[in-house]
């Protein structure tokens, strides 16, 4: 186990080194933010931690309880630095997103914009070692990813829809997802094992669970809804149903799949 973990870590490090050595340029400059140096990003980070993290989280990944969105991927309300700047400056009326203090200097707002920009990976700045077309082929052939995942309406239902996965996951995260699928499994993809009052056991993906009921989808895509007080028991399996690709794909094939998945965006 220890050896495998070490190997995986080495594999991840080696592959990621390949990814990020190729990174260059500054997307902030492309969008006109003059405050885009590492110094500015750090200044933005400090401001964010102090003023914004209470709602958006110290890691900027949002908070379901406060309703503050994840800022580390594509932003729903802003598609450019100027858009982010305007939201910070004016707030979003009718929500908890208040404007920053009116006397906050523009430079500081732009630094915050630079920090938020640094949280998402701009594909224009990344030259991945893998082949997108090779990855697309692997997705349906050897990898059989499409047996569970859907892209643009084609594929299975037993895993997340990946049509725009490149907007939400960095290449590093995509790599980790494939090699260590049981790490950080979202609750939506846990498995529930339900035993009804007749002793019948049914397993399915955890579509939703609340205080009094739960809903699952079995492997035949049947949807089941159970009141908790009318079943004998239920069990959560907080692991992924996805296999690890450490043994089945080579390093270069994994690189190809990462390149393909990272290319899946709205504009593509």
């Amino acid at each position, binding site marked *: 186990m220890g050896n495998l973990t070490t190997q995986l870590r080495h594999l991840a490090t080696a592959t990621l080194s390949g990814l990020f050595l190729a990174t260059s340029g500054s997307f902030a400059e492309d969008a006109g933010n003059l405050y885009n140096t590492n110094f500015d990003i750090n200044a933005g980070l400090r401001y964010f*931690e*102090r003023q914004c993290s209470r709602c958006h989280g*110290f890691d900027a990944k949002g908070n379901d*309880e406060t309703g503050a969105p994840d800022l580390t991927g594509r932003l729903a309300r802003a598609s450019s630095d100027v858009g982010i700047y305007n939201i910070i400056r004016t707030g979003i009326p*009718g929500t*908890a997103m208040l404007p920053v*203090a009116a006397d906050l200097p523009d430079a500081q707002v732009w630094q915050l914009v630079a920090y938020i920009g640094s949280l998402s990976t701009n594909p224009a700045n990344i030259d991945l070692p893998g082949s997108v077309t090779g990855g697309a082929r692997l997705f349906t052939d050897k990898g059989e990813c499409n047996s569970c995942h859907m892209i643009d309406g084609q594929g299975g239902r037993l895993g997340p829809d990946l049509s725009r996965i490149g907007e939400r996951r960095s290449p590093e995260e995509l790599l980790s997802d494939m090699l260590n699928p049981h790490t950080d499994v979202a609750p939506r993809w846990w498995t529930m094992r339900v035993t009804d009052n007749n002793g019948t056991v049914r397993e399915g993906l955890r579509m939703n669970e*609340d205080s009094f009921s739960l809903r699952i989808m079995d492997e035949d895509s049947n949807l089941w809804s159970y009141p908790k007080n009318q079943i004998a028991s239920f069990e959560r399996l907080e692991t992924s149903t996805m296999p690890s690709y450490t043994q089945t794909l080579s390093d270069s094939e994994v690189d190809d799949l990462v390149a393909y998945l990272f290319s899946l965006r709205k504009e593509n």
Partner: protein
Amino acid sequence: MNKLSLLLCGIFLALPLQAQEDPFQTVITPAFSPVTWERLVNAESEPENWMMYSGTLDSQRYSRLDQINTGNVTELEMKWSYQIPVIDRAETVPTVVDGIMFITEAPSNLTAVDARTGRVYWRYDHELPEDLRICCGRNNRGVAILGETLFMSTLDAHLVAIDARTGNVLWDVEVADYEAGYSKTAAPLIVKDKVVTGIAGGEFGIRGFIDAYDPVTGELEWRTYAIPGPGEPGNDSWSGDSWKTGGAATWITGSYDPGLNLIYWGTGNPGPDWNGDVRLGDNLYSDSALALNGDTGEIAWHFQFTPHDVHDYDSIQVPILADIEYQGSTRKVMMWANRNAFFYTIDRETGEFLEGEAYATQTWAQGLDLNGRPIPTPGMAPTYEGILVSPPIVGATNWYSPAYSQQTGLFYVTSFDGEQEFFKRDEDYEEGERFTGGGGRYNQPMDAFHSSIRAINPATAQIEWEFPIMPRSSAGITTTAGGIVFTGSADGYFFALNAASGEELWHISLGARVHAAPMTYAIDGQQFVTIASGNVVYTFGLKEN
């Protein structure tokens, strides 16, 4: 008699008949009468009304109404709903007096409705500046009433007096400067002839206080700082000048014991929240229960739950007062399930610690000593790199109301077993800016944690039962003589449990988060129970045969 008068007579003669036929017809002549101090002291004997935030001055949230009970609660049906026009979260606990319900709304508004139908009498929209300094959402939790005047806190740190019959503003005073980070969200508490109220802003380096105002003029009668000034006992529990920006906000409503003439009020975290290096010492009276003289506001005693807190474990919980059997005699106690995950039973005459145990998962303390002071676990203070600690910043519980049942003698609390990485940062104080010194990050999804309603025996501090819910809830609790615990959940349920056993009796999906506590009242012999969910205030009653 002129023509208009004759016409009006005709209308009013005809209305009672219409009222019976039309369920949407507003009651024409409510028996609304002034709320005297005597009525507030004896609120328990008027269970048809809910005349203050926590129902009664002892804040038990126990109603003597028993028409809805364990035997018939499954017959509840929705009687009406009121849609709050401002889209935001509702943390309000409505007040009901003689058939009229007063509902506070985000950000700082107030509406009076017919409590039988939910139809509006009047509404008051408080004008707010655009550059508010608020840490955690645009909330308002309720009003206080004395005579025919309602008293409401506002986000710009004002206290407003409003005519209960019309919604007209009688006076509007600035309690503190919002530009310096002060704000107000909690319902005030009437104590005799004064309006007692706290302040929010613990994430902005404020200096917390509890105020008392003249209900007629709005003049400040007394102010007791939650952080002692130079020369006062406790000031030396702050290093250097850190007391000036030490927080200790007082942002939830307290309780009052008329027999002892003591006001009980909780205080919030010391500031900056997560960096204690700049405020060495116990940091009195942050994270404490304060007992104040009901006439002068002088501090009679204090009990600090979390000395030198570095995890934001506000003691912003509503103190519940009851007389309980304890080790062979009747003791006047105060019960407190703290955000720091420990439950305490304290003698409310003296502040003596009687019982205390962890009621939720915690890793920050090894336990409590004989005086109830926590024994910190070494190495659990926030670091620059982050350290995993339980409970998380939001706490094992928080501001949402617990309850007590006179039938079962149990204390009920919404509790959370979670953990979070805590980070420390260096920050300089700047007036009106956040002053927190760090923050937190969850390493697991919320569904991976455990939440529940827990019933605690205050004589032993032991958990008697628990009912699991999910995910973390910020709903308060109400108990009734019908043997019921009413509460809600973050996944949008309103539900009833058996107060003795924790058994599920009834639930309904309302579909939106419940951030509020239920309350109950009656009109013409019919009991209702009300809860806010999302932006809607729902009222339920038994089906009529």
